[in-house]
C-alpha cells in the first residue's frame, strides 16, 4: 500500500466505497501504526470498513464487541481455573509445591480473549476491531490504554506480552457518550458522516447490481433528501447505509423500476424503525418524492 489512491482502489475492489478523507485516515493509521477511532451515527459503515480492510490486508479479523460492564477477563485473558485446579490436585504429593506453582501458571492454562489473541497473531498480524467502545464503561477504557499506546499488555503472573506483529486496530463508537481523552490521544480520529449522493449511488450499484440504473439513482436521491436539511428535522433517526441497501433490495424484489409515493409509504418500515418516523414518512411520501 503506497498511496491513498491505492487504498481506495483496494477497498473498492472489496466492495467498500470510501470517501477520500476516510481513506486518508486509514492510510495514515496503517503507516503511522496508530489505532484508528471511527465515530459516527449507527449505519454509516464503520464496522463494514473494518471487515473490508481485513480482506484488503489479508489479515485475520478479531472482533471485540463491547458492552456495559465488560471486564478484563472477557477482553484480555482469563486463567483456566478448572484445569489449574485439576492439575494441582493431580500433582499433589508427587511434586514440590514450587514446581506445582510454576506449572499452574503456564501459558497453556491461559484462555486468550480478543486483545491477547490479536497481540499473539504472527505475521502479518491481525486486525482487531473494538466495536462500539462507547458501550463499555470508563474503567474498561482504562484497560485499553496500555494496549492502544504500546501494543502490549501486562499479565501479573507472566509479565508483559508484546505484539508479535502490531495489530491494525480499529475502534468504533456510536458516540452515546464521549470517550476519555486518554483513549483519544492514542488514536487517530475520523468522524464518519452519512454518504453523499454520489457515494451512496456507488454503494447501491455495487451492493444491489440487479437494480436498474434509474432506480438506483432515485434511491440515492430520496435518501439524500431524507437526510438533507429540509427533512432531517422531521425524523428522530436517520436511515443508515444498511437500510439503503435493504430498501433497494426490497424494491427490486417488488419488481419496481421506479419509486412512487405509494410504494415509499408501504416500505417506510425498511428505512425507519421508529413508529413516529414511519408515520411521518408515510404521510409525507408524496412531498418527499416531489422534485425540489
Amino acid at each position, binding site marked *: 500500500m503506497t*498511496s*491513498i489512491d491505492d487504498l481506495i482502489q483496494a477497498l473498492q475492489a472489496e466492495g467498500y466505497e470510501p470517501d*477520500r*478523507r476516510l481513506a*486518508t*485516515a486509514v*492510510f*495514515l*493509521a496503517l*503507516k*503511522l501504526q*496508530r489505532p*484508528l*477511532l471511527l*465515530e459516527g*451515527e449507527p449505519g454509516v459503515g464503520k464496522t463494514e470498513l473494518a471487515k473490508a480492510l481485513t480482506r484488503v490486508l489479508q489479515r485475520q479479523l478479531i472482533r471485540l464487541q463491547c*458492552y*456495559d*460492564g*465488560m*471486564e478484563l477477563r472477557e477482553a484480555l485473558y482469563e*486463567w483456566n*481455573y*478448572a484445569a*489449574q*485446579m485439576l492439575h*494441582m*490436585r493431580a500433582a*499433589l504429593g508427587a511434586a514440590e509445591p514450587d514446581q506445582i*506453582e510454576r506449572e499452574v501458571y503456564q501459558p497453556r492454562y491461559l484462555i486468550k480473549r480478543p486483545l491477547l489473541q490479536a497481540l499473539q497473531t504472527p505475521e502479518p498480524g491481525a486486525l482487531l476491531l473494538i466495536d462500539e467502545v462507547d458501550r463499555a*464503561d*470508563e*474503567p474498561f477504557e482504562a484497560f485499553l490504554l496500555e494496549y492502544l499506546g504500546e501494543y502490549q499488555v501486562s499479565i501479573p503472573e507472566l509479565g508483559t506480552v508484546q505484539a508479535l506483529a502490531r495489530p491494525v486496530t480499529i475502534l468504533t463508537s*456510536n*458516540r*452515546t*457518550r*464521549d470517550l476519555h*481523552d486518554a483513549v*483519544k*490521544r492514542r*488514536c*487517530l*480520529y*475520523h*468522524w464518519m458522516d452519512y454518504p453523499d449522493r454520489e457515494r451512496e449511488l456507488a454503494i447501491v450499484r455495487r451492493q444491489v447490481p440487479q437494480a436498474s440504473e434509474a432506480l438506483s439513482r432515485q434511491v440515492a436521491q430520496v435518501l439524500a433528501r431524507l437526510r438533507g436539511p429540509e427533512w432531517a*428535522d422531521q425524523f*428522530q*433517526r436517520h436511515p443508515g447505509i444498511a437500510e439503503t441497501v435493504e430498501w433497494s433490495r426490497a424494491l427490486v424484489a417488488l419488481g419496481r423500476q421506479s419509486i412512487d409515493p405509494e410504494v415509499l409509504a408501504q416500505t417506510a418500515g425498511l428505512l425507519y424503525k421508529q413508529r*413516529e418516523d414511519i408515520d411521518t414518512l408515510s404521510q409525507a411520501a408524496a412531498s418527499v418524492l416531489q422534485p425540489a
Partner: protein
Amino acid sequence: MPVADNLLGFGRALRRAGVPVDSSRIALAQQALVWVDWSRRGDVSDALEAVLVSRQSDREVFHELFARFFQAPVNAGLPWSLASSGADTQGGEVPQAPQRALDALASAVMLPPAPPESQDQDDEPAIDARFSASQRAHLQHADFRTLDAWEYRQVERWARDIRSAMPTQPGRRTRAGTRGAQLHWPRALREAARLEGEVVRLPKRTRREQPLPLLLLIDVSGSMERYTRLLMAFLHAATRQARRRDVFAMGTGLTDLSTAFRHADTDRMLAEASRRIPDFAGGTRLGPALQDLLRGHGRRLVGRRTVTLLITDGLDTGEPQVLDAALAGLKRHTGRLLWLNPMLRFGGYQPLARGARVLHRQVDAMLPVHNLESLQSLAQTLQRLLQV
C-alpha cells in the same frame, strides 16, 4: 523548517480555540505529512484532521483555522503557500466563522478566563458567623424565593454540602462475595492453594452496585430564576458520583450543560453554565425543548435505566399537545421520569396550569425542591422510589 514552524503555530491556534492538541500530536502530524502528497491540499487537510482532531464538534473550527492558516495558492510557483501571517489581516471578512476560531486567531486581544471571585471566599467565615443556630433552623424551612441576597448565598453554600447517596442498582461488574450465581474462581483457587488443594468453600461472584445514569433537565425560565442557580449548585455537588450525567438547560431553546457540569468546582460550573445559556431567565417552551433533546441527543438516552430529573415549575407557555408528545417520547427512552417541582411550596398545590397538568399525568413522581429540608430528603426519597 518552515512547515514545522507553521505546524507549531497552527497547533497553538487550535489549542487557543479549545481543541486539545499537545506536542506529541504535533510531532505525529509532522510524521503524517511525510505520507501525503503536498500538491493535494485536500489530502493535507484530511491528514492533519485525522491526527489533530478527536471530536466531531472540533471539526468546524479545524476547517476554519486550516483555511486561514494554509491559504489557497497565491504564487503560481508554489503548490500552495504556507502563510500564517495572513491569518490576522483577514479576521473580519467571514462573519459566519465559528466564534472559537475567531477568538483563537485574535489571540492578542484574548483575555484570560475570569478568575473565581476570590473575595467571596474571604467573606465566607463572616457570613457564617452572621447566622445563629435558630436562624439556621429558620433557613432550613425557608422557601428559596423569600431569601435576601445574604441568606441566598449562605443557603446555596449549605445546599452544596448536602451529602446524598445516589440511587444504585446491581451492575454487570462483579466482586467476590458469598452470594451469587457464578463461582469466583480466582479466589477459590487461591484458597485451595493455601489448603493444599482442598476446596472447603465456594466463593461467589456478587454483582457490584452501580449508580444509575442521570439525565438532568433544568428549566431556566424567568419564573424559576430564584431556584435555578441554587438547584444547579445542589445537583452539581449531590450527583457527583453518578456514573453518567447528562445535563440540559431548557428555556426557549435547549442548552447542553454536560461539559460545564464536568468542572469539579461548583463556582466554575455556574460561571460556565451562565455563559452558555443564551436565554437565561427568559420564557419557557418545554415541549419544543424536549423535542430538540430527543432529536438532537436521542443517542445519549440509551439506557432504559436512566433516571430523568425534570426541574421545572410547570409554567409552560408552549402547546400542551407538543409537551405531551415530547414527554411520552422521553419516557420511552428513559427509566424513570421524576418531576422536581418548587411549586410544591404551597401546601395545597394542584397542578392546574396547562403544562403542569400534562406533566403531572406523564411523570412517575413529583417531589418538592423549594427549601433546604426538601433537598436533604430528596436523595432518600429517590432511593426509595427507584427500588419499587
